[in-house]
C-alpha cells in the first residue's frame, strides 16, 4: 500500500517535539514497512528551504540542547527511500526559490497534483 503524506502546517510544536510530528510519524511508519512519501504544501513548503536554524530557544536559565533539525530529518527520510516534494506554487507565493531547495527534494505543480495523487493507494492530509 503506497501512501502520500501531505503536510500543510509548519512548525507545529517543533520546538517541544524536537522534530515535525508528521515527519517523525512518517519515519516511524516507514520503519514499520510503510511505503510512505511526503508532499509539503502551504506553510510547510518552508521545510524544504536550505539553511534553517532553530537554535536559541531559552526559557529563564533553561536552554534547549537539541532543537529541531528539519533539514537533517528530511535528509534521513529521503535516505530511507521516501520521495519528498513540495508544491511549486506555494513556494513561489512565499518568496522561496524552487531552485534552492534541499538536495533531492522535488517540486510538483498544482496541475500535476492529480496525477501525483493517482500514484497512491492512500492520501493522508495533515
Amino acid at each position, binding site marked *: 500500500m503506497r501512501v502520500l503524506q501531505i503536510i500543510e502546517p509548519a512548525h507545529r510544536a517543533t520546538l517541544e517535539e524536537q522534530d515535525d510530528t*508528521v515527519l517523525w*510519524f512518517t519515519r*516511524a*511508519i516507514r*520503519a*514499520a*514497512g*510503510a511505503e510512505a512519501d511526503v508532499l509539503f504544501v502551504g506553510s510547510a513548503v518552508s521545510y524544504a528551504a536550505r539553511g534553517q536554524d532553530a537554535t536559541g530557544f531559552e526559557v529563564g536559565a533553561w536552554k534547549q540542547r537539541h532543537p529541531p533539525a528539519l533539514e537533517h530529518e528530511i535528509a534521513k527520510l529521503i535516505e530511507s527511500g521516501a520521495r519528498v516534494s513540495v508544491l511549486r506554487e506555494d513556494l513561489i507565493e512565499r518568496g522561496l526559490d524552487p531552485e534552492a531547495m534541499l538536495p533531492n527534494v522535488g517540486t510538483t505543480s498544482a496541475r500535476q497534483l492529480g496525477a501525483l495523487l493517482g500514484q497512491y493507494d*492512500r492520501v493522508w492530509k*495533515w
Partner: protein
Amino acid sequence: MNPALTILMMDAPYEQARTATAFRLLDAALRRGFSLKVFAYEGAVSLPLTLQKPHANAVHGRTLEEEAHPTPPVWVSALMQSARERDLEFEWVNCGLCVDERGATEVVAGAKRGSPADFWRMAGESVNTLVIPTR
C-alpha cells in the same frame, strides 16, 4: 467478518470542533456495521483519560448532575460498549511516547498503548483510513 475503518485523531479534547465530529463519525460507522480502529496521536491521547471530571456550571446555573458535562472518556467507553452490543471490533491505541510526554496514563479499560507501527497495521487491516490532524 465486518469491514474495518481506521481513524487517526490528533487533537486534545475541549479545544475545537474536530473531536466531537470525529466521535460522530465513529458512532455512525459502528451503526452502519463497521469495526473501528482508532489511533490517538499527540494531544488525542488525553481523550480516554479517566482523570477528567465533569463539573457544575455556575454561569449556566446548573448543578453537577443538571449540567451532565460531557467528557471524552465516557464517549470512548460508550463506543466500546456500542461495538460489543453489535459484535463489532473496536480497537483504541494511544501513541505511547505521546502518553509519556503528557503523563496521560490513566485511561479507560480497553485502551491500549502502542506506536505508529500499530497505526500502519490498522491501516492495512482496514478498508479505508481517515487522518484528522490538528490545525
